[in-house]
């Protein structure tokens, strides 16, 4: 299909069998050799991936499929796409979704003003000539999706919060996600010059359509395990001591186990750790934890509850 056969570093048999599986766009040369390479690479750009994350990223590259990332807010969905872009040295193209997004904002738009100027500039030409002229690439304003396709350099495309668009608008994405091409009625079909790595994120406010899910690999990022969270704090918060990171991670885990309206996210955990470092806290006691809880929790009732629990006023002990 669209990619040129430059994948010389793979055995011929593999290439031959790939050509048979038409219907899938052919991937370019693989970006990663193994799952472990993805993990260490991501760790190199300060993103600590677990088995699931690195496995899916690796697979997304190999199968040339988009990744649909779901999970609670603030667990590093967007950060994953950014980190992969940094790791592969690709340009990050981001499409922020919102209600009312349409194709002129997501795909492409004709530059009407310029077209008008062109028509007024010389009126002597025949209409056929003129029409040919004003519907050329010169008058096309590319929007993120088309730009990701047209780019010759490697690209990571991030479609953020895809659950915010209407169900009907999702259909706009389908062609680009499965075939990596965009059809423009006046121009024809624009095929991808390279296969971008595509990440879609969703906060799960609504069920995405089956058609979209079917085209993607699915990755659910949840709150991290204790060890991983501790490691994240250590890499992301400069000047934090090991004991401190451990304590923060453990307190956050305890808070998450409570029945709260909104459990603290990873980014809030990091904010909290940074605050404690700035305040020069060496080891957290209940009083300090209580005073800074508003960074972790954003609801009055949650804060009350957590501080009560942490101070040990409950009778479980």
């Amino acid at each position: 299909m669209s990619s040129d056969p430059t994948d010389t570093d793979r055995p011929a048999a593999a290439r031959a069998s790939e050509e048979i599986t038409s219907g899938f766009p052919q991937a370019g040369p693989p970006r990663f050799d193994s799952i472990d390479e993805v993990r260490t690479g991501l760790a190199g750009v300060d993103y600590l991936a677990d088995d699931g994350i690195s496995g899916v990223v690796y697979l997304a590259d190999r199968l040339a499929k988009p990744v649909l990332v779901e999970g609670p807010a603030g667990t590093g969905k967007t950060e994953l796409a950014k980190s992969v872009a940094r790791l592969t040295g690709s340009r990050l193209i981001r499409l922020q979704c919102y209600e009312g997004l349409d194709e002129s904002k997501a795909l492409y738009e004709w530059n009407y003003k310029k077209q008008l100027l062109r028509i007024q500039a010389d009126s002597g030409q025949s209409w056929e000539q003129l029409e040919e002229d004003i519907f050329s690439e010169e008058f096309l304003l590319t929007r993120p999706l088309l730009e990701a396709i047209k780019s010759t350099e490697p690209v990571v495309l991030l479609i953020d919060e895809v659950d915010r668009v209407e169900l009907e608008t999702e259909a706009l994405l389908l062609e680009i996600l499965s075939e990596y091409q965009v059809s423009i009625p006046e121009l024809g079909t624009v095929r991808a010059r390279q296969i971008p790595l595509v990440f879609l994120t969703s906060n799960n406010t609504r069920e995405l359509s089956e058609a979209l899910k079917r085209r993607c690999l699915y990755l659910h990022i949840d709150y991290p395990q204790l060890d991983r969270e501790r490691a994240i704090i250590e890499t992301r918060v400069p000047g934090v001591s090991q004991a401190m990171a451990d304590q923060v991670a453990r307190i956050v885990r305890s808070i998450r186990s409570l029945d709260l309206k909104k459990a603290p996210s990873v980014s809030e955990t990091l904010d909290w750790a940074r605050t404690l470092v700035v305040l020069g806290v060496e080891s957290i006691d209940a009083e300090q934890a209580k005073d800074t809880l508003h960074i972790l929790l954003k609801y009055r009732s949650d804060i009350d509850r957590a501080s009560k629990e942490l101070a040990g006023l409950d009778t479980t002990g």
Partner: protein
Amino acid sequence: MLDLLTGFVGELRAAGIPVSLSEHLDAAETLRHVPLEDREAIKYTLGASLVKSSTHWPTYETAFEIYFSLRGPGHAVAGEDEGTGAEPESDEDGSSPPGKGGTQGKGQGGGGGEGMTPEELADMLYKALLSANNSMLQAVARQAVSRYGGMEAGRPVGGTYYLYRTLRNLDLAKVMERLIDQARQATSAENAEARHAGPDVTLTPLEERLLRDEYQARIDQLRKEIESEIRRRLVEDRGSEALAKSIRKPLPEDLDVMHATRDELVALRKSLAPLSRKLAVRLARKRRHGRKGALDFRSTVRHSLSTGGVPVDPRFRYPRPSKPEIIVIADISGSVASFARFTLHLVHAISSQFSKVRSFVFIDGIDEVTSYFDGVDDPSEAVHRINTEADVVWVDGHSDYGHALTVFWERWGEEITPRTSVLLLGDARNNYHASGSWVIKEIRARARHVYWLNPEPRAYWDSGDSIVGEYANHCDEVVECRTLRQLEAFVGELA
């Protein structure tokens, strides 16, 4: 491998996870790229193409463990561990004593005399938990299952029975106390050393709480190990396909609400919040994008002036969809209480879709509970208040539909208007009281619709003291509503 994958996909579908053909193809493609000896990687990458919803993940995980345990590398790993498992008593011993396990189950609760004593096992468990040593935890799990599980070959029970038995014998709560005590002593000893002779400083509540959570996490880990150990043995005994069938768990939205266990109810409650939020979003969207209203003749003519009197651009009135008024009358007696709670929760969560929602609950007396939901942003709080505060017992606290309905009619019957839809929730098991079905007939004459939601399977209707048939004569429809999925579908239709 492909056959295995096909069988696995079949199992997933049977468990209720929708896997399309193209997803199946993707999964097959996946296997070409991921090294087969890396079991974890296979699990996550297969999952990425087969499972497209986080609520389905636990089901997938269980199915994966079962399907890829016997033939997969998991089996080999387990075999190795038996060699390294520090204790001499091992699997051969463990699988043989079904008789012994049987007698233990009858209530001795103590241990057998051979090999490790229970004290030794308890000690090992304690050490494993203290040091968070994973391989040691695994060994303990294996020991505990062979000692206390009392597993018998060919018995068609699910794994939960063995799990319960093993855990009861380990008495984890006591172990927890011991761990905490130990930690307390350690800190006070440390402090004593540091200050030579200070006051006896113990753990602060915060520290204690953190420790407790830490040990709890380790104990959960142990429980998981035990579960997987039991599962592994069951697979050996019966083969993966038979087992998959016997321990298949329905997805939360397909759980039968009336017969859910406590754990399942927790899962249900968790999935209710996103469900109601999604339903609200969907309904709001439907309303906004609904069809246009009727032709606005005046406006069309006025706009036609700009095109010389030709009505090029027809104008329409804004649609004003009627929002129904809802009256919910729910039986909250023991048998159907959880179902009523879920329904009230769901209806109130989307109350913006109705012009008015009023709720009544009854057992043999009836009480209005609408005000409980006012100004509360979390319906579950209100539902909690209903359980504790509503005045619904008239004589003895057994369902009496006849009395409850009669009182409803006398007190609130006037307020039913032709715009009202009435929802009645209950199993109509009336303890052989008078039915009071004339009330339903009266309501039907006045209201727009009368629906009855029955959480019992249709086959049980009109058996025993159920008189749903008598009420059904006067209702627009009687709906079987056993799972959250059915409930969501019904409420979605209503709005």
